[in-house]
């Protein structure tokens, strides 16, 4: 129920007026984003100015250095937030610099660093990307480019732009900034998806699908923003939250504005849930994950998911935190649909990349249970889950890049071709088995702690039925994870068995980092987990959404 209020602050309605002075911006706090942005722009210049032969090493070095430097800056800023404070906002309250944003940005940067290693893997001059994307697949021109050894080094600046968008997406503190971040993040990804070296038509189809559906979801998102702006008179999250408390902008003193808010929440939810890949907005995931070059799939499955969840958490915790009773049923439904449908459909998949895509949808459902919890514990659980899942999933896709149908052949996507892999290359199969067990949530892997944390938070928030559904769906997912392990270790190798190409140093280190993170976060989760849960300082009566959760408001 909307309670009628007599006075709404006039400032809510008044748009930021243009004054003589430019707004003060703390560039130090913005520096992690600026470093990545600057490197991306520099990368574009390199494309224009540096000779082709030297571009790859330069671009890769620049991209790695930028992500590493941005990570260091992010950590420094995390350390400079005074204890007990959530953080601050800058640029007229449009970007938040708080613990949640910094943690997720740090995670994105680390995961992007590992993904860059995969993207850079270059075997005998052959990367995962098309030699010249502008040529018609199968044409003479394409052949000549392949023979000439052309390479798309534009990939690196594109990745950096995408990473910039992701960083901003988790930190955006008003809807317009968030929308811009969404586009900055998505546009390079649409392009990158279409650049696969093999099965190019398939890859281009994936890119088009992703682009069309993504454009639709952006439109929904934007329309939702418009409605919420109409209701609240501002796009700033803090103002929106205040407006919801006050029952809407002063126009709606009679309480008639609620439909605007509800439809706005729903439409914004559609936009964000599309990026997260929750049922029923998940249809792009299998196709895109399968069609995109596998290193890009790894980037999307880890970094994009982190960014999308970061935005989802921020919007629903801060902006719409006050109307939790309105959106909770919606997320309940979506979470249940996601966990059940995706798990069941995943069982029927025969292609490893599609299977991992559906598994990513299921995991998104598990994380949604933490969003439903709408508590600091839920937030911490979701953040831990995101980090843990990101490392594991990059490792898994790194392994996918190594298993080929034959030497110099394309990746062996068909699961049937993976039979007996455990006999021929035990180390590789063992790593994948570990990742799959982590996905299944077996103890001593990071997956268990993550699942435990989100389920515990959801139960504490009274969403026990949701957790029961989650448990059942975990058992279903365990079925197809274990089936792959069986296939690898206990089946006779097929005559046309896969060839495992030797892991290059870059891919090898990506897998090694994945294994190490999966183990360490599983056995010693406390260094990460303890820093995520804010220590409760006050024994105040519980509001609809607890406020001591690390978001700045």
């Amino acid at each position: 129920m909307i309670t009628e209020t007599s006075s709404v602050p006039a400032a809510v309605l008044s748009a930021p007026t243009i004054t003589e002075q430019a707004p003060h911006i703390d560039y130090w706090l913005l520096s992690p984003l600026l470093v990545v942005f600057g490197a991306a722009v520099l990368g574009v210049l390199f494309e224009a100015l540096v000779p082709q032969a030297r571009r790859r090493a330069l671009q890769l070095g620049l991209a790695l250095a930028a992500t590493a430097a941005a990570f260091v800056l992010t950590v420094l800023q995390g350390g400079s937030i005074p204890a007990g404070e959530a953080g601050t906002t800058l640029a007229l309250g449009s970007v938040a610099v708080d613990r949640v944003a910094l943690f997720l940005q740090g995670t994105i940067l680390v995961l992007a660093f590992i993904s860059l290693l995969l993207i850079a893997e270059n075997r005998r001059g052959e990367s995962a990307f098309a030699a010249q994307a502008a040529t018609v697949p199968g044409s003479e021109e394409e052949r000549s480019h392949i023979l000439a050894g052309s390479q798309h080094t534009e990939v690196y600046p594109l990745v950096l732009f995408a990473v910039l968008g992701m960083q901003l997406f988790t930190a955006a503190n008003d809807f317009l900034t968030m929308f811009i971040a969404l586009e900055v993040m998505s546009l390079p990804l649409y392009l990158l998806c279409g650049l696969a070296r093999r099965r190019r038509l398939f890859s281009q189809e994936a890119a088009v699908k992703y682009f069309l559906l993504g454009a639709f979801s952006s439109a929904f998102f934007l329309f939702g923003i418009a409605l919420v702006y109409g209701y609240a008179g501002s796009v700033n999250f803090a103002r929106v939250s205040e407006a919801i408390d006050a029952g809407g902008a002063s126009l709606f003193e009679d309480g008639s504005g609620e439909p605007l808010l509800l439809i706005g929440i729903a439409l914004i939810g559609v936009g964000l849930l599309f990026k997260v890949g929750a049922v029923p907005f998940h249809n792009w995931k299998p196709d895109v994950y399968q069609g995109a070059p596998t290193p890009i799939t790894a980037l999307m499955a880890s970094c994009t998911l982190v960014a999308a969840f970061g935005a989802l958490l921020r919007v629903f915790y801060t902006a719409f935190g006050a109307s939790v009773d309105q959106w909770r049923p919606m997320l309940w439904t979506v979470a249940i649909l996601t966990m059940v449908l995706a798990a069941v459909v995943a069982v029927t998949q025969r292609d490893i990349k599609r299977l991992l895509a559906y598994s990513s949808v299921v995991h998104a459902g598990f994380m949604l249970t933490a969003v439903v919890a709408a508590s600091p514990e839920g937030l911490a659980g979701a953040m831990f889950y995101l980090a843990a899942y990101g490392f594991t999933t990059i490792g898994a896709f790194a392994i996918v890049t190594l298993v080929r149908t034959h030497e110099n052949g394309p990746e062996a996507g068909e699961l049937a071709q993976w039979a007996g892999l455990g006999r021929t290359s035990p180390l590789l199969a063992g790593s994948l088995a570990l990742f799959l067990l982590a996905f299944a949530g077996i103890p001593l892997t990071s997956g268990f702690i993550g699942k435990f944390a989100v389920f515990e938070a959801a139960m504490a928030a009274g969403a026990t039925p949701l957790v029961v559904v989650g448990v059942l769906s975990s058992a279903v997912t365990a079925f197809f994870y274990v089936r792959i392990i069986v296939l690898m270790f206990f089946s006779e190798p097929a005559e046309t068995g896969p060839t495992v190409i030797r892991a290059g140093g870059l891919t090898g280190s990506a897998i090694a980092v994945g294994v190490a993170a999966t183990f360490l976060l599983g056995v010693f989760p406390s260094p990460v987990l303890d820093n995520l849960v804010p220590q409760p300082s006050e024994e105040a009566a519980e509001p609809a959404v607890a406020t001591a959760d690390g978001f700045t408001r």
Partner: protein
Amino acid sequence: MLSLVIFLPLAVAVGLYAVPRLSDRVVAWSWIVACAVDFALVIAMWIGHGTGDGISYEANVRWIPSVRAGYHIGVDGLSLPLLALTSLLFLACAIYSLRQERQVRAFAALFLFLQTVSLGLFAALDLLLFFVFFDLSIVGMYFVIAGWGHGDRMRSALKFFLYTFLGSLVLLLGFIGLYLGAEPHTFDMVELTRTPPLAGSAGLGGLVLLAIGIGLAIKTPTVPFHTWLPPAHTDAPAAGSAILAGILLKMGTYGFIRIAMPMLPDAWRRYAWVIIIVGLISVLYGALVAFAQEDLKRLIAYTSVNHMGYIIVALGAAGAVGDQAARQLAVTGAVTQMVSHGLITGALFLLAGILYGRARTYDMGRFGGLAGGAPVFSGLVAVGAFASLGLPGFSGFIAEFQIFTGVIGSGGTAIVVVGALAILGILITAALFLRLLHRTVLGPPGELTAQVTDVHRSELGAVAPLLVLSVIIGVAPRFLLDVIEPFSAAVVSLVAR
């Protein structure tokens, strides 16, 4: 020292992989030595613990402080017998596997891993730690069945994994319920036992008990959650079956005594009758179905359902109103039954493995008159069968006698009827074991009898100690009961709160 006992096998397993190019013989013997040392350490702990009712060898290290879960371990009158049983049975399996030929190193490493997991579970005093070991035992056993089993092993292994994994997840739900019910939130078993969570809210307590009960009942297993057991046993290798029946099933009943009873005493008392009935059905149904089996291993598997049923009946009776001493007797009997069943069924499964190793089948109808060609083997089977049916002089008798006396003595007419019906179970078991002996050991030779040669030294060395210990417990049970009794007194008073 307890941590050493728990992690010694795992360290040896890692060592087996760290040293390159070990011959199979070296691997097998280092496995045996590791198990023997571990067993000796457990015995030393047993002596050190004495007969007090407290927790000794306690260690408590912070692990995940934000949810107040720690690496908290210790031993008391319940865990000690099970630790000893675990290390002994794993030693027997190590000796039995001297004749193993396929992938010896991986097999040994997997069993050593399972040993660490089992020991850790029986020593864990933290719910999250307990759960970690509980789940890892499923993973370990899955690989044992899938990798070294026979028959339709993939299917059985997958069924086993999914069924028990689902059970473990339900159990986790229950644990989270306990955690959230406790004030302050904690996973520490000692604290949860001291101040039972959810004491005020009957409905929630019942739900949490339901979750924990289903999770543990699947592992135990009780009817109707037993259907994963027969295929898993049939297709598992002999040593795997012995561990599955002897140790892993105990994790379920152990959980009931360690977690469900003291932490949810209200709910346990309220639903005692449900538990008793489930146990009774397991007793009768397990025995009747076992009677109908042609397959030796399925037969033993179903007698496990029957034997675990007695334990459930006893634990349920401990929650019913009635005489304190009788309920204590029931709990002591239940713990003794856990040890006894581990020894006897472990031995029987190893013997079934010997039979399969010679003739490649478990079909009882194709054997007969084994006593002629394989007298020692036949003798061992006979001893195992008599021990399992609860003949006086064996550990099974001590256990079941205490259970029945405790159950019948603990209350009114209804419970006497239950006791009487459960005794029927013994009658059926006796009949089925005599039928087993009649069909395989005695009578005219069957088509495969000629293939069955007598036991080898290593096989005898694995099986005989288990049966000898069963006889020792049957004749002089004091050393065991002295350890258990203080604990069962404590549990009964905890349930009565």
